[in-house]
């Protein structure tokens, strides 16, 4: 899942603590595939009870059309461990989420799917949250977000996740290569690892 740069306008969703039930409701988790989730992203906010688009919801406004960067309130992605949440965000068209903080499991799930969770300083975040349609450039290699005026802000990211995204390293492949260490650990723990057999 490679990621290098993204240049896009933003869409702002100024709500704190957006939980994974809002991102993708549990009734859509009965699927056994990863496909078809994007259409149901934020569904109960995005659509009115009659199925038409809610014109007041930020993602439905003209300024949001084609936006690949979502700017949200604090603690985005809290709640369940469902990886369907980043799958749905990616399929809808988002490549990065900007917030002040992310829930731990969501952050890990997002990085494994090439969806970049970006933590911005509070003052910059507050500016970005005011309007949709702000043009930004995100560069993973330099860990920077460049604003339209040329101002550049750095963001933190776990170095291993960064390397995996830049180089397209597959985490499971990396882990499988640790087989000798895993076997050695099991041999040393023999007798004390629970066995269900």
């Amino acid at each position: 899942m490679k990621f290098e740069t993204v240049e896009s306008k933003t869409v702002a969703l100024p709500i704190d603590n957006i939980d994974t039930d809002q991102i993708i409701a549990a009734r859509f988790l009965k699927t056994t595939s990863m496909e078809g989730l994007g259409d149901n992203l934020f569904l109960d906010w995005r659509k009115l009870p009659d199925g038409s688009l809610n014109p007041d919801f930020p993602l439905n406004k003209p300024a949001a059309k084609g936006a690949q960067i979502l700017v949200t309130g604090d603690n985005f992605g809290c709640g369940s461990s469902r990886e369907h949440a980043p799958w749905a965000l990616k399929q809808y068209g988002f490549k990065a989420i900007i917030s002040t903080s992310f829930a731990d499991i969501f952050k890990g799930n997002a990085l494994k799917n090439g969806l970049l969770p970006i933590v911005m300083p509070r003052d910059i975040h507050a500016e970005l949250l005011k309007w949709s349609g702000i043009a930004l450039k995100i560069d993973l290699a330099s860990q920077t977000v460049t604003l339209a005026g040329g101002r550049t802000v750095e963001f933190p990211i776990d170095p291993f996740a960064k390397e995996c995204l830049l180089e397209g390293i597959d985490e499971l492949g990396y882990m499988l290569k640790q087989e000798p260490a895993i076997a050695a650990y099991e041999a040393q723990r023999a007798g004390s690892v629970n066995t269900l057999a």
Partner: protein
Amino acid sequence: MSSKHVDQPRTIVEKIWDNHIVAEQPGAPTLIYIDLHLCHEVTTPQAFQTLRDRGLKVRRPDLTIATMDHSTPTTPHNLPILDPIGKAQLDQMEKNCADFGIRLYNLASDKQGIVHVMGPEQGLTQPGMTIVCGDSHTATHGAFGALAFGIGTSQVGHVLATQCLLQQPSKSYEIRVEGKLQPGVTAKDIILAVIAKIGIGGGTECVFEYTGSTIRGLSMEERMTICNMSIEGGARAGLVAPDDTTYQYIAGREFAPKEKDWDAALARWNQLPTDEGATYAKTLTLDANTLEPMVTFGTNPGMGIPISGLIPDPANISDPIEKSDLVKALKYMDLKPGVPLKGQSINVVFVGSCTNSRISDLRAAASIMKGRKVSSKVRMLVVPGSQQVKKQAEAEGLDKIFREAGADFREAGCSMCLAMNGDQLEPGEYSVSTSNRNFEGRQGKGGRTFLASPLTAAASAITGVVTDVRSL
């Protein structure tokens, strides 16, 4: 990332971490070993598909165990499943477990149940273990002094294929609870009070260790209720150091160590509690003496108040987003600020979920229901956490108490906690629920949830309004 030297005082979280380090390489997270992998039908199908696509086997089927709970009907299990998509997911679980050699407690098994009820009751959950499941409420198993946490589906695949995970160490956050709980106040009220205090992001990057005299005095089922909702405080996991209460619960269960193995296990488990002088990144102290029954009024589990309290007023909040979030929550809930929640009319009461569906929860609810009737305005569902809990409840006659009161006593599963299986609220309905999340639409599109203890839920079912159980 090197671990602390073992001669230094360590927290229980650090000890379990150190015991499970498989490899540490510069520039990469630590590779840690997973002792027990619990699986259910919702978060595993795509992971099994990854294994198929890459021609991989499950590395340790003997450390992997599966059940069915989320999409599972709570109507009698011998009836056909009406929802074709839910049925397809359950069928896929059967196939995946058969193809990869994983033990499955399916709908025909008398051990089937919510994964976090089934694990402890079978003796699978033991102190000092690392336990994962594609489910954020895996922290429940922390009640036994295990490091147990929820993972996403990619990581489910990693554990199936390697029995390991790449992880960064967590900070230890002590939640100390001291004093005596007053009548009518329960473990659920403790954890709702903790989350109301620290907020739903308060524990991010941390593992809670619950300590103090109140926690020591709790039963294993009460400790599970508290650890279960650690994720609602934003923590990766939550745990309680093991003690005699823990050991007495485990002894004799199917997967518990036996005879000589038991003695060896006890010796290992006794090494686990946090050393004197070990430091926590943060500490919160809570006075149990002054706690009241808690109830949530809003759309996240941090929006909780004591039953005698008032719904907060956005006018008193200065932070603009916090204020607009409260306005939004009250609008969704159709509630007014500055008034009590006590007395609010309700439509549904749900007693169940991995938080509060064990036998002691059902006993607590039944103690209130006995000889009383569910209000004619209320639909009440009692959903045992497992087939074993159901059997025990029936042996004690609790099913009769619930049915005679007018409640529906059902088969085991997650049910209306997340409303995947057809058990759900109608738009606009209010529930008092013993589950763990009150997010918008969590119990059904447009539904409105008040989280509370089984005692509060049962009392509210009788009166038809949010009720202080101490007033019955």
